């Protein structure tokens, strides 16, 4: 049987092996190793795509008028005539320094273009995440409290229905309702956050809402299940026996323990939101990273394509790490021991 890469799965009774600090740091160490590995693998995959494309800058830029000399020259210019593994390392090395090469077409450094485009996606994704937590959290808690009642069943039904609809359809419906019919919010365009927060909000709220609905639905459903399950646990009885009000039991104890799976769902939603930003960019005409990638793809501009992919991957990785870290911090004991009550 495959043995485990063993990290302290169960803490022995009475002693904390290596002290409390080491115990709380260890899971983060593993997290780091895994993330680093995934990062390296993604860079390889990304680079492989570029290598497989077989496109060359001359063909992309000059089209059919490219002569063999042109091709050779441009290949040399862009460092494409050295062995692949060398190209990979150079590319990776540069990337880690923030240099993602230059666009074959515009010769604008890719990192510059990304620097202007990325904040658009990030700000909207951030807003979407906040909205997802608020809506999903409230719905999940309400459903759990009602437990089998009207609120519960309505929430579950809505969540299931929402899961079958592509977010861009939701986005379009939002546009129809709020822009076309009500005329309250704009249907496209963007103002950066630093420039004018109020205007930013006006433009950002619809795309953020479209992005968040999916995640809010999953979160609500998962939270409800976890909460309902947790409320049957003995420690809830224990807390009630101490005379705590329902509110205190729910927020002080149950949520803390039941939030694990819900956080996981939220964590899974982060890359969805970031990836989904692509669709919303098209829907709402936002100058984000996906537009950059799309244009690059149309033109066959490999550095741009690779650069955008890499940056998006990094963003997702960082977000995942953060969520995982929060999960660990919030609930180290239950996770280490495997289940409430611990291993004894």
């Amino acid at each position, binding site marked *: 049987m495959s043995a485990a890469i063993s990290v302290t799965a169960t803490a022995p009774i009475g002693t904390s092996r290596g002290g409390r600090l080491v115990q709380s740091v260890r899971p983060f160490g593993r997290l780091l190793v895994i993330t680093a590995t995934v990062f390296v693998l993604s860079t390889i995959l990304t680079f492989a795509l570029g290598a497989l494309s077989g496109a060359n800058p001359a063909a992309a830029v000059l089209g059919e008028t490219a002569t063999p000399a042109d091709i050779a020259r441009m290949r040399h210019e862009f460092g494409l005539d050295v062995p692949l593994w060398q190209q990979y390392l150079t590319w990776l090395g540069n990337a880690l320094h923030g240099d993602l090469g230059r666009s074959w077409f515009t010769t604008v450094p890719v990192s510059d273009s990304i620097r202007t485009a990325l904040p658009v996606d990030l700000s909207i994704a951030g807003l979407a995440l906040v909205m997802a937590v608020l809506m999903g959290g409230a719905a999940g808690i309400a459903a759990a409290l009602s437990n089998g009642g009207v609120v519960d069943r309505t929430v579950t039904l809505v969540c299931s229905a929402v899961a079958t609809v592509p977010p861009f359809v939701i986005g379009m419906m939002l546009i129809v309702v709020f822009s076309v019919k009500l005329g309250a919010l704009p249907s496209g365009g963007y103002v950066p956050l630093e420039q004018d927060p109020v205007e930013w909000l006006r433009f950002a709220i619809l795309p953020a809402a479209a992005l968040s609905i999916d995640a809010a639905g999953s979160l609500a459903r998962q939270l409800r299940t976890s909460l309902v399950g947790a409320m049957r646990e003995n*420690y809830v*009885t*224990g807390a009630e026996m101490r005379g705590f*009000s329902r509110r205190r039991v729910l927020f002080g*104890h149950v949520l*803390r323990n039941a939030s694990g799976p819900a956080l996981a769902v939220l964590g899974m939603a982060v890359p969805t939101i970031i990836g989904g930003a692509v669709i919303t960019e098209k829907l709402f005409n936002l100058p984000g990273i996906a537009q950059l990638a799309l244009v690059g793809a149309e033109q066959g501009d490999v550095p741009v394509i690779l650069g955008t992919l890499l940056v998006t991957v990094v963003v997702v990785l960082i977000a995942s790490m953060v969520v995982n870290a929060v999960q660990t911090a919030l609930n180290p004991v239950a996770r280490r021991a495997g*289940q409430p*009550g611990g291993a004894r």
Partner: protein
Amino acid sequence: MSPQPEQTLWVERLDVTVGAHRRAAVRDVSFTVGRGEAVGLVGESGSGKTLTCRSVLGLLPPGVEIAGGRVRLGSGADEVDLTTARRRTWDKVRGVRLGAVFQDPASYLNPSLTVGHQLAEVLRTQRGLARGPAHARSVELFTEVGLRDPDRVFHQYPHELSGGMLQRVLIALAVSLEPELLIADEATTALDVVVQAEILQLLSRLRRTHDLSLLLVTHDLAVVADTCDRVLVMYGGEIVESGPTEQVLRDPRHPYTRALLAVASIGDWSRRTLEVIPGSPPEAGEELPGCRFAPRCRDAVADCTAEPVWLTTWPDENRSARCLRAEDLESVGGPS
């Protein structure tokens, strides 16, 4: 049984039914727990002792309800009717006037908070203590319940402590607000014998120092033998015998109690055969004519199953037994 002054708990003719068909799992149970008194509620599983206990605590599961009778906490001006209490009343009573410890202490604690935090939380929320004083008082309480190195224990999580230690923690939690009554539901069942004895000693000590009333619910006669002033024996949902512990154990007046003693063989180390009560207890809610123990009783006669059996009482001795033949069996003596 009439209410006495200075009584902490008064359970009067309690009926508890289970399920849609309302089968009676607890029938006409009445008892009191006086101030500072320790009462043991003994019975095997299915006897109704747990449901009685849970009725007092307001923790009946869905489908189970109190169909009749009353449960009252406190006396005089402080009396509270727990049978009809709603959540708000319970929140004021639980912890403050009524505490409880259960079997499997680990599961009654929040696994992701330190035990100290959970005790301090009670003090901060219910008594309004600030962080510092709450911490200090928690450590005091941990010392009082016999935990070695209480400062260290404060920062430990439930899964890091042994069963005995956890039970002490739960006891600390239960008595932290100085309640009038502490209910222990099979609190020592999951512990090994030595630890069990220590916990029982602890409970007795707390009883003295805090003027605490105790209700010990258990299946183990040995537990009540040393700790309880009075004992109530339950069978088939009814109380079949009650009285001062020493007298009931020395001179039982109900055949079931006698049989229980024979099985437990308390103090009788010379016996070599394993005593067993033939047959099995009635299902919860099963309706039987007459005495519910009769089918398994050595001394049963025709009259026993003719009609429901009332409690025979000996008021001067403060004893009672639900047996038609209690008087004449007395002279026959104990088990062979």
